[in-house]
């Protein structure tokens, strides 16, 4: 399946679009484009962080109590898994730069595997919350937090929790699809020292998903 070192024999401009002068220019443009996209992602998640900050500072005690209902152990395990997937992704970029086809495929596969495990653990956490009724504001049904004016403030915490982790999970799914696409292409032997842009840009995206989680984990699980 793995086309060893095919990059050395491929036609020089196979992946260079006609409107770029040099491969270097195309690489720089793609990378800048990806960073601009990451900027939009930072702002996209940024909105949720604003909502988080507003409700946490208005009701610190609610957040403190509600965070106890999350499973810190599972959150920490998921953090380690995502960090590991970031390592394998960074390594995949290294492999593609060096033309190591086997290493590239292995690293990408490990990354996808870690992402799926992350989602599995997330699913376990979600199902616990579902069974205990620890859901978002309108569905929250557990009488153990401060209740004000006919609704439960803890529901607000879980609204934020589900919005943030849910959006993050959607990004994980998109990341799996993107890495899967890169994996397919690497099985075909598309990448080598002078063409690894998709590995690099998808890698950047994956690291950003990791970055978001680095902030989500302490802000949601470790209040206390």
């Amino acid at each position, binding site marked *: 399946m793995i086309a060893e070192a095919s990059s050395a024999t491929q036609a020089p401009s196979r992946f260079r679009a*006609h*409107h770029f002068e040099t491969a270097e220019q195309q690489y720089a443009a793609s990378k800048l484009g990806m960073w601009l996209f990451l900027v939009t992602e930072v702002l996209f998640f*940024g909105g949720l962080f604003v909502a988080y900050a507003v409700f946490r500072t208005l009701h610190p005690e609610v957040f403190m109590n509600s965070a106890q209902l999350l499973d810190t152990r599972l959150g920490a395990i998921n953090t380690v898994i995502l960090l590991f997937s970031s390592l394998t992704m960074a390594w995949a970029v290294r492999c593609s730069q060096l033309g190591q086809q086997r290493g590239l495929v292995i690293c990408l596969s490990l990354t996808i595997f870690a992402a799926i495990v992350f989602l599995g653990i997330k699913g376990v956490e979600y199902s616990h919350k579902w069974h205990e009724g620890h859901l978002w504001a309108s569905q929250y049904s557990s009488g153990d937090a401060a209740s004000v004016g006919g609704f439960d403030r803890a529901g*607000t915490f879980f609204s934020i929790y589900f919005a943030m982790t849910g959006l993050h999970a959607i990004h994980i799914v998109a990341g799996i699809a993107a890495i899967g696409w890169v994996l397919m292409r690497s099985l075909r032997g598309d990448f080598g020292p002078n063409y690894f842009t998709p590995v690099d840009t998808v890698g950047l995206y994956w690291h950003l998903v990791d970055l978001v989680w680095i902030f989500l984990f302490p802000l949601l699980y470790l209040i206390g």
Partner: protein
Amino acid sequence: MSTTTEPKHRLPQFISPRSTTEQPLSYLTAERGIRSWLFTLDHKRIGVMYLIGILTSFLMGGVMALLVRTELLTPGPTIMDADTYNHMFTLHGAIMTFLFIIPSIPAALGNFVLPLMIGAKDVAFPRMNLASLYLWVFGAVFLVAAMGLNGLDTGWTFYTPYSTTTNSSVISATMGVFILGFSSIFTGINFIATVHTMRPKGMTWFRMPLFLWSLYATAIIQVLATPVLGITLMLLIAERVAGIGIFDPALGGDPVLYQHFFWFYSHPAVYIMILPAMGIISELISTFSRTRIFGYRFLCYSSVAIALLGFLVWGHHMFTSESAMAAVIFSALTFSVSIPSGIKIFNWLATLYKGSISLTTPMCFALSFIVLFAFGGLTGLFLGALATDVHLHDTYFVVAHFHYVMMGGTLMAFIGGLFYWWPKMFGKMYNEFWGRMSCLGIFVGFNWTFFPQFLLGTKGMARRYYNYKPEFQGLHVVSTLGAFVLGVGLVICAAVLVHSLFRGRKAPPNPWGVATMEWETTSPPPVHNFEDTPKVTDPYDLEGFVLNETSGNYERRPAGITSSQKPSEVKA
């Protein structure tokens, strides 16, 4: 640009024999058939398709505007019931904002012109460019589908908690706007990457045409602000579908937080609408005064300053809902935006001073822009000042103000730019006399419609109301009559452009004598934009061109000849 890599443009295999006879194939004729348009990666074709899309939306929004104005002829019911009226003004606002103004200049004109202006073959990411067009189409379908479902009666701002409780089709509309946001982001990313990485050697930042500066500044806002709208609408949809209670006070949420979210995007979005317009005006004023633009660097900096300051003033839409402290701060910051805007106005006026002004159609629109934008900008100061805003908030004064800026500003510049680049886009000259007439009609009709609304607002007529007291009727009637004059002006404008496509004189490569690179190539350009790689020159060296009276083309002045020829006006 290197001169070695690409072979010169060759004829594609499948061409009709008719087109091979005289001239090289243009991007319009090189390939035929619907598929060659739908799957094209050519920025010029994508720009033209965008143009068709946004003009269709403009027509739709315009008809709604006329219906709204007709309804307001009399107090109480005139041609529709109150509920229909609410739907009508909401869709007018949403369509005009999200489907027309925001993509109008960047996505249609910018897409066409930007790569040509830097002498490139295409934008950095052509496939993403096409994707942005299709996202626009899908977004438009979702937004317009709301009309066919249960309508939309929230106002274009989708304020909570009304938008989470009304039974109209908020989800379809907001999904549409969410998708349109992605379309806008893709355009922005593409433009920034193109400007950063694809400028030719010799075109430094401060040798870029001002239209590129303004598109660049616009793209920064598109990339930074639009995602916040995305997350806002996602939360709104989640609120409606699942009741997550972020914005709904009944569930512990905060409706003012929605306003913060919404305006954090939508105020900068106002600059997405006006900045590219300002770029067009800089080009037009310089070209048709036949003078170097005055204060080039200040125009560059002021574009970026407007883009950045635009992020600091969102709270001035919320004077009546935010805290007193925030209102005071935002009011003060709001005035700071008038500084770069003022710099632009004064630089344009200084460019006109002692210029050799020719009142071509684009120039008429540019001059109208300056007048109307100054009106819009100055009335904005009344709204930015807290004390007067308490009286004017949510009245027709606000409606008149933003129509002066958005329509008097952006639309005028858009049409001016359309007339300016029309010969380049389609290779046809239009009728100058009727072009100017359309400008006159639009200018008169516009003021006729919206100036009375300033008066209505100061008298206390609230916006968005179906019914009103009899004392307001006189001004409402005047405004409605003006709207129809405005409509006639726009119809003339459309007729002039459509007529030129069939009967227009063939356009020379450089009918206006401009030094920016898009005029170096044929009109319309070939598929890969340039037969020969153009040299980077000073974009405002208008002295370097002389008019060839027989062909109507401006040609580069041969070296050694310095006498400045009197610029002749292009004949109709």
